[in-house]
């Protein structure tokens, strides 16, 4: 069933790609022309851009995502999570602080043939900036 296929793809993305760093799995889980509406600076286009994004987030936070909700509606999925980690590499202009961080976000994906096709999100960056002690710009 499409709903379950979509849910499984998203759960594998969080567990195996973001969690375990298996970037190659994205060839299976995301379409080549993946469209990110909230791309990080320098992310680049498509699935290759998504690989760069995941690598950057993993390096920046060594993240652990606790998933509160995975809501699947036809070809769209919403995921509400709390990220816990350590701010270990540059992220959005902030030099690593080595501080423990914890903040919430919701990702929204549209799916095509069981694969991630487009992405939007809202992340509580205000919590992140407060936890790392405010502006320590490069």
């Amino acid at each position: 069933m499409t709903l379950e296929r979509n849910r499984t793809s998203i759960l594998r993305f969080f567990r195996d790609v973001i969690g375990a760093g298996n970037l190659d799995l994205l060839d299976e889980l995301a379409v080549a022309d993946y469209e990110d509406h909230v791309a990080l600076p320098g992310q680049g286009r498509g699935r290759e851009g998504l690989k760069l994004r995941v690598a950057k987030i993993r390096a920046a936070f060594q993240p652990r995502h606790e998933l509160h909700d995975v809501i699947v509606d036809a070809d769209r999925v919403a995921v509400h999570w709390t990220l816990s980690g350590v701010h270990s590499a540059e992220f959005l202009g902030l030099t690593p602080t080595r501080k423990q961080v914890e903040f919430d976000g919701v990702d929204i994906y549209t799916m095509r043939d069981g694969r991630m096709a487009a992405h939007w999100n809202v992340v509580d960056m205000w919590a992140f900036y407060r936890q790392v002690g405010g502006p320590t710009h490069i």
Partner: protein
Amino acid sequence: MSETENKQLLRRYYEEVLTQGRLDVLETIARADYVEHNPFPGHGQGLEGLRQRVNTLRTGLKQQFTLEHLIAEGDKVAVLWTTRGTQVGEFLGLPPTGKSYTIQGVDIHQLRDGRMAEHWDVVDMYGFLIQLGVVPAPSGAPA
């Protein structure tokens, strides 16, 4: 209630309550024991807490919502919205700035028996505060 009906009920919340200020509608669309998981400081729970929240939002901010995504499964509905607004009054301790902003947020609503029962949210407060001029935009970060 079907997922379509749940989405319809939430459209009423954004249009009739948040946009038009019809607080009486809350009695029809929300439960008396409504639970807010991200309450504003000092706010209570239940229907009264929800009225308080809507009042705080509408007194401080004049805003227009665009519902970009409504995603429903069972009794849960996620709503990603864009709001274009102006801070016209005191809001969460901030004196009125008169400044305008465009931000996004996601509400997660849990319904029960066809009414709003619980709520969580993630809102781009950082973008909001930057656009109000309350905090500086960091170099390298998108405002």
